[in-house]
């Protein structure tokens, strides 16, 4: 077990280095004269040159790359070129926002999809058809549309929940919950649809299996069979889907954060990528890959936990 964990983590670290390196090359590929954008429109050319020198942009790519690799491996992600805030601080501030809404969305979509997916799998007929059709449709609606409508209707017009901003949990739990509710719902929309369909499918598969019939032959109630045995056996693929959803949700978060004016990882990445703020982009990439590695690891462990056969090996 320990060996497995260590191997996975080492592979993860290698992955982080590779992805970040690829991004580094990509970012520097155009040789963007980013210093100009940093100092701003009214600054003088001399100031821009000075800035470029300060950032080391006047040096060859190779040398810069190895410098960057060295400092990054030592754990220093550097400072943003545009706002001088250490990248670690930016990420530290942004992660709670993004993770809050992503986990909010995950929990929401897991709950809803378990309920809808199970019921749809068990109940054929109009209920199943309605669930399927609405899931497919919900999945087809672009995420920004859902977010925009929620922001306009629930926040701006009805004023039930804040339209923008994030309140850290430690400042106020209630306000935190209120601030992430709408973004989470918006984010969960598509994910719920996909997970519901997936869960419905795998539950249907499980329902066809022999042991379900045997369980029924023992006089167990359908509800017990479905929610204990079938769900439990349909869960491992759903966990995999959920972990893939997580990665997908990171993408969705980029859009949702924009709509709700949240300064999470997604909007940090967007603005940094657009500006060419290399240290921030790289920091985001590194953290994202690390999170993905960890999430996949957790998914694997959960998979093992849910599946005794895997656990034994």
């Amino acid at each position, binding site marked *: 077990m320990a060996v497995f964990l260590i191997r996975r983590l080492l592979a993860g670290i290698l992955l982080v280095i590779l992805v970040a390196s690829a991004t580094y090359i990509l970012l520097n590929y*155009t040789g*963007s*004269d*980013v210093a*100009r*954008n*940093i*100092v*701003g*429109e*009214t*600054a*003088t*050319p001399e*100031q*821009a040159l*000075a800035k470029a020198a*300060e950032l080391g942009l006047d040096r060859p790519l190779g040398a810069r790359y190895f410098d960057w690799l060295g400092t990054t491996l030592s754990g220093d992600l550097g400072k*943003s070129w*545009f*706002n*001088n*805030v250490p990248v670690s*601080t*930016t990420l530290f*501030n*942004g992660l709670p926002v993004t993770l809050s809404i992503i986990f909010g969305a995950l*929990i929401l979509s897991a*709950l809803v999809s*378990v309920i809808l997916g199970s019921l749809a799998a068990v109940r054929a007929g109009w209920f199943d058809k309605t669930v399927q059709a609405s899931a497919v449709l919900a999945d087809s609606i672009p995420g920004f549309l859902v977010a*925009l409508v929620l*922001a*306009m209707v629930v*926040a*701006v017009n009805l*004023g*039930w*929940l*804040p*339209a*923008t*901003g*994030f309140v*850290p949990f430690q400042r106020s739990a*209630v306000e935190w*919950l*209120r601030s992430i*509710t709408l973004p989470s719902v918006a984010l969960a929309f598509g994910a719920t649809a996909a997970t519901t369909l997936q869960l419905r499918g795998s539950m249907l598969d499980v329902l066809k299996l022999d042991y379900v019939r045997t369980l029924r032959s023992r006089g167990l109630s359908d509800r017990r069979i479905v*929610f*204990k045995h079938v769900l439990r056996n349909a869960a491992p693929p759903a966990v995999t889907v959920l972990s893939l959803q997580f990665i997908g949700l990171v993408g969705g978060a980029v859009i949702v954060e*924009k*709509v*709700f*004016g949240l*300064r999470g990882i997604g909007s*940090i990445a967007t*603005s940094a990528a*657009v*500006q*060419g703020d290399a240290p921030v982009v790289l920091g985001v990439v590194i953290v994202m890959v690390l999170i993905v590695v960890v999430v996949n690891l957790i998914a694997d462990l959960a998979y093992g936990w849910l599946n005794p056969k895997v656990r034994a090996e």
Partner: protein
Amino acid sequence: MKRKLILAGAVSLALAMSACGGSGGAASGGAKAGGTLNLAVSQSLKSWDLAEASMGNAEQYYEPVFDALLHMDAKGAPTANLATSWDYDASLTTLTLKLRTDVKFSDGTPLDAEAVKANLLHTKAGKGEAAALIKAISDVQVTNPSTVVVKLSTPTPSLLRSLANVPGMIASPKSLTSPQVPVGSGPYTLDAATTTAGTEYGFVANPNYWEKNSYPFEKVDIKTMSDPTARTNALLSGQLDGAGISPDRVDAAKAGGLKVDTVTPGVVEGLYIWDKKGAIVPALADVRVRQALNYAFDSASIVKIAKKGLGTPTTQHFTSDSEAFVPELDQTYKYDPAKAKALLAEAGYANGFDVVMPDISSLFPEMQAAMVEQLGNVGVRVKLDKIPFDQFMPSILAGKYAMSYFKTGGADPWIAIQLIVSKQATWNPFHYEDQHVTDLLSRISTSTGSAQVALYKELNTYLVQQAWDAPWDVVKDVYASSKNVQVTMHPFYQTPPLFNFKPASQ
């Protein structure tokens, strides 16, 4: 099963909470006297180090903490603030400032001549936009604790106005070396508890501030919100008291009960002709061609339609706030495509000419569309070059394009000149020089008062005749504010300065 129940419970609780908190959207935005003023800024804070500071709407980040040497009145004339009096010598290269003696930084250090010296030298050596405005400062001498003498390498008519803004802000000398936390003498101090770097900056009133009456709010909260929709939504839902919004949101903002004002930051937009030497597109070296380009644009329609009325059609680089402004000049190039064609033909370009421009449709789609269309109408064929966003400014500065859409400028004429006109101006990427202009510039810098104003106007007239660029309009920004506050716009400030915000009830 049990775990699931707990989760379900948590979620329903959450929903209940959000329902209870129903009207709470505006709860945090009560901007009464002694309350909190909630503002949003589209730019991010670049640095607390004034040497790196940006201008524009980023000014608002610095205003709570740092006090400037001077203020400006509604006409842009300098008024006393930290400096009680100011005096130029005859050569206009030595400025003597008398300072208040009762001001202390929030860390207890007195604000004296040494502090001012340290700040000005620190800032001017920096790489920010603020630094660019005072780069002419060659030295600062301390005469006594309340008197500093600022030496200029060259006369800088815009200096006093600059000192009334970020370049004139004074930070505690101790904080200059480690500018992670701003320490100033301003009306507020940064509150770490409500601050999230890069996202939100909370400020609380500085109990020792010498002029508390100008700042009636107990707290100021400034959020960074780059997305215009998010800003509008935050304003509409009462989370903000003031923020800039984009032009097409004006009606929605008004409908939502917000007050909407316009700000004129002194920026002029239009077709900027970089290659007046004709290095890339030889046609542009011909003044008739450049004039033709001016005739080609229907500025009134562009403003009315593409800008949704938020702008003032113009043909000059100087705005009505500026001393160099000559109202009659705006009549110089009335929209006349026929005349444009005639001029082109006269210059030998009866069939027009080809030009490559950067594709800026992702930033300014309407502007680009109008420009391409109207240039096409007179025979100028535009080929658009797709470049990444962040290459827009660098590639222009690198002299890659002969002309392009652009907008820049400053309310102060000298600042505008330093940006656009002079040989070394940032936005003169081909370093085009016109001897007449150069002469006029040196005469302007060494004159004052009405003589200077006359020279400014002469320069302006010449530039328009030379068709230096083809401006369309003076940009108007929109600033929306909630009913809770009363805010007045202020010329020479790109966003209303903090001292112009008052609770509505007063």
